[in-house]
C-alpha cells in the first residue's frame, strides 16, 4: 500500500506536537509495510534543514521519501494573545501571519503536481494547513482522502471564538474526506458538534510516544517543583497554572513553579505571578529544546497540563517517560489513554491545587501514581496507532 501524506512539519523541524506525531505514525506504518511519501513545505533558510531531512530519510529507509515544496512559512502558530486580537476585532492575520493563507494555497497547488507525478493508493492530510492540498490531490488522482485532525480551530483558541477562514478550510477538508481521523474521542465529539461531520466516518487514532532513553543529568531544585511545559497560549491554560500556584503556596510556601515554554501569554503570566506576590516562586525558562526538555521533566516532582482544550496532549506521556507523575486536564484526549493520572477540570483551580499539594506531600501517592502511569505508558505505542490507521485505510479502500 502506498500513501501520499501531506504534513506541515517533520522532525527535527517542528514547533508543536504535529511533527513528532507525524514521525511516530509514519514509522509505525512503514513497519507494517506501507510506503509513505511525506510532503512538507520548505523550511526557512536560516535553519540547516537539509541535512536533518536527509537523516530523517535514513531513519525510514527508502520507504519514506521526504519531498519539499517551496514555502516561506514561519512556525505553525505564533501569535499575539488571541483574546486581545478578538477584542481589537482583528482577523486571522495576527494569529497566523500575513502570508499563511497564501502559503496554504500555494502548497495546495504544488500538491496537485506531486499527485500527478506520484503513484499511490490513498491520500492522508494532517491538519487544516494541508487539507486543501489533500483535496487537490484527490481531485486529480480520484484516490480516497483521509484527513487527520491533530487540533481544531476551537482548541487553538481555547474555545474563545474561531477564525472563520481556518474553520472553513477545516470543515471543507473533513467534508471532502472519505475518513476523518481525530486524535481522540474528545476531538471526535467536537468535530461532530461543531463541524457537523457524520460520526460514522470518524475513526479515532490515538497518539503515542516513542521510547528513547534520554541521557541527561537530573538536576533537582532544593525545593519541591511543579512544572508547566508547553506553548504559553490560551489553549494550554497557563493562567490556571499560575492561579493554582498561588493557592498551593498559601499552604506550602516553599514550592517552586516552573513555566517552561514561550508564547503570547508569557508576559501576562509573569505579571500575574508578581501581582499575586509569588514572582520569586514562579520561574520562567523561555522556549526549551532537545535535552533541556527532558531536564525540565526530570527536575519536577509533578507535571501539570491544565489545557483548556487539548485534542491529545503528548507532554504528559513525555513527563511519565522521564519519571515524573502527571496531573492532567479532563478536557484532553490523553486522559482517554491514561487512566491512572490525576485529572481535574481545567477551571477547577482549587482542585488542581489540592492535587498538587497531595502529590508533593505524600510519597506513596507519587510512587503508586508513577508506577501505574509508567505501566500504562508501556501499553501505548505508535505501532498500535498505526494498526488503527491501517484499518482505516483498508476500510476506505474497501479491502
Amino acid at each position, binding site marked *: 500500500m502506498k500513501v501520499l501524506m501531506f504534513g506541515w512539519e517533520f522532525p527535527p523541524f517542528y514547533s508543536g506536537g504535529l511533527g513528532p506525531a507525524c514521525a511516530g505514525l509514519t514509522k509505525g506504518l512503514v513497519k507494517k509495510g506501507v510506503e509513505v511519501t511525506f510532503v512538507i513545505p520548505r523550511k526557512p533558510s536560516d535553519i540547516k534543514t537539509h541535512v536533518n531531512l536527509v537523516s530523517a530519510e535514513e531513519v525510514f529507509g527508502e520507504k519514506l521519501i521526504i519531498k519539499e515544496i517551496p514555502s516561506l512559512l514561519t512556525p505553525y502558530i505564533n501569535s499575539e494573545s488571541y483574546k486581545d486580537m478578538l477584542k481589537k476585532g482583528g482577523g486571522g492575520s495576527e494569529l497566523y501571519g500575513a502570508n499563511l493563507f497564501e502559503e496554504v494555497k500555494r502548497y495546495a497547488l504544488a500538491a496537485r503536481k506531486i499527485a500527478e507525478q506520484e503513484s499511490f493508493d490513498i491520500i492522508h492530510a494532517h491538519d487544516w494547513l494541508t487539507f486543501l492540498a489533500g483535496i487537490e490531490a484527490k481531485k486529480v488522482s480520484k484516490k480516497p482522502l483521509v484527513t487527520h485532525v491533530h487540533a481544531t480551530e476551537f482548541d487553538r483558541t481555547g474555545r474563545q471564538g474561531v477564525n472563520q477562514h481556518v474553520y472553513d478550510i477545516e470543515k471543507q477538508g473533513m467534508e471532502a474526506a472519505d475518513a476523518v481521523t481525530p486524535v481522540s474521542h474528545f476531538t471526535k465529539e467536537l468535530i461532530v458538534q461543531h463541524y457537523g461531520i457524520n460520526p460514522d466516518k470518524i475513526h479515532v487514532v490515538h497518539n503515542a510516544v516513542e521510547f528513547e532513553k534520554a541521557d541527561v543529568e537530573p538536576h533537582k531544585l532544593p525545593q519541591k517543583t511543579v512544572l508547566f511545559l508547553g506553548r504559553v497560549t490560551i489553549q494550554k491554560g497557563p493562567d490556571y497554572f499560575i492561579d493554582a500556584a498561588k*493557592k498551593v503556596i498559601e*499552604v506550602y510556601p516553599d514550592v517552586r513553579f516552573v513555566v517552561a515554554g514561550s508564547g503570547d501569554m508569557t508576559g501576562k503570566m509573569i505579571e500575574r505571578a508578581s501581582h499575586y506576590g509569588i514572582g520569586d516562586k514562579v520561574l520562567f525558562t523561555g522556549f526549551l529544546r532537545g535535552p533541556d526538555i527532558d531536564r525540565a521533566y526530570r527536575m519536577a516532582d509533578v507535571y501539570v497540563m491544565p489545557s483548556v482544550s487539548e485534542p491529545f496532549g503528548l507532554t504528559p506521556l513525555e513527563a511519565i517517560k522521564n519519571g515524573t507523575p502527571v496531573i492532567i486536564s479532563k478536557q484532553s484526549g490523553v486522559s482517554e489513554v491514561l*487512566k*491512572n493520572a*490525576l*485529572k481535574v477540570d481545567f477551571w477547577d483551580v*482549587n*482542585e488542581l*491545587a*489540592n*492535587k498538587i*499539594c*497531595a502529590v508533593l*506531600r*505524600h*510519597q*506513596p*501517592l507519587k*510512587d*503508586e*501514581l508513577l508506577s*501505574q502511569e509508567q*505501566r500504562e505508558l508501556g501499553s501505548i505505542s505508535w505501532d498500535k496507532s498505526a494498526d488503527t490507521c491501517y484499518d482505516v485505510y483498508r476500510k476506505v479502500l474497501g479491502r
Partner: protein
Amino acid sequence: MTSICFYFQVHQPSRLRHYSVFDIGKNHYYFDDKKNKEVIEKVAGKCYLPTNALILDLIKNKNVKASYSISGTALDQFERFAPDVLESFQRLADTGNVEFLTETEHHALASLYSKKEFVEQINLHTKRIKNLFGQKPKIFRNTELIYNNEIAKLAESMGFKGILAEGWDPILEWRSPNFVYRPAGTKKIKLLLKNYKLSDDVAFRFSNKGWTEWPLTAPKYAAWLNSVQGQVINLFMDYETFGEHQWEDTGIFNFMRQLPHEVGNYNIDFKTPSEAIKMDSVAELSVPNTISWADLERDTSAWTGNRMQQSALTELYKLENEIKATGDKELISDWRNLQTSDHFYYMCIKYFSDGDVHKYFNPYNTPYDAYIIFMNIINDISQRLKNSKPSAYARFLNLMRKIK
C-alpha cells in the same frame, strides 16, 4: 440430617465528602451526609425492608432461621436516615429465630493494626447489639471475615463461643467446610466455615446468564444442598445480595421465598450459628496466615495491598494513643469512622487498573482521589489533636511526670 446456617452481613460505610487541602484546619466535618442518606434510602427500599419482610414471613410460616451482623456504621445511619429499617430488624430479633453476631463497631481493620482498638470495638459492638436487640452475641465475625489463629484465640478469651471464617481450600486441603471445627490453639470456641461455592452461587452467580447453571431455581438449589455431606452448610453472604446486588427482576426474592419449601422435601433443617456450634467439632484447624472472604486470593490485599493503603492505615493507627488520651468523644468518633475498611478498599489500584467495573465501585472515582481525601482528613485530625485540650487524665499524667 444436614443443617443450613444463614449468615448475612449488613454494612454501609460513612462515605467521606470531597475534603480538600483547603478544608484542613477550617472545616472538621468529614462525611458526605447527602450521599450516605441517598444510599441508605435506596438500599432500604430495594433490599433491607423487602428482604426483612420476606425473612419475617419465612420465619413465621416455614420456621426459617438466620443470623446477621450489622456494622455500627450501618446502625448509625439507620438511626439517622432510616429508623424503619432498624425497627424491622428488631421485629426479626423478637421472633427468637434470628441471631445477631458481634463484629467490629466500625467495620474496621483493627485486627491487623491494633489489638487494643480491636478489643474495644468488639466490646462496643457487643454492647450496642445487646441494647438494640436484647441478646448478648455469642458468635464473633470479623470484618470481611478476616481470620487467623490469633484472632480465634482472642475471640475465645473474650468469651465468644463461635467464630466465622472463609472455607478456603488451601487451609482445608482435603477437608470439607461443611463440618464444625476447632481453631488451633483454642479450648472451647468453634469455627464455622463458609461454603463459598454454594454461597456464591446465590450471591454472585445468581443472575449471570453466562453461567451454565443459569437460571438457578429453588428446586435445583435445594437438590444441591441435599447432596452435600456434612453437619452444616454455612451460607454466608452480604445481605445486599437481595435486591441490591441481584435486583428484584432477577427473581432473587421469589427464589428465597420458594427455597424453604423446596428444602422441606429433604432431611434438612435451619440452624442459627449458636445452634450449629452445639454440634461436636470434627477436627482442629490451623490458619496461621490471615485469610478473608475477598478476591480470588482470599487475602487482605484489597485493603492493604498498595503503598497508599499502607501509608493511610499506618498514619491512622499512629494517632491511636494520643486520640484516646484526649477523651474528646467527637474526635475519637471521627477517628473510628475513618477505620472502616471501605475507605481503604476505595484506594485499591488492582481493580481500578484491571478495569473490572463490576467488582469496582468507588464513590471517589479513582483510588488516588480516595487517598488524597483520606490523607487531608488525617491531616486535619492531627491538627485538632494538637489543638485539643488534654483530658483530666492526661493532665494528671503530665503532672506526675513533672513531679518525678
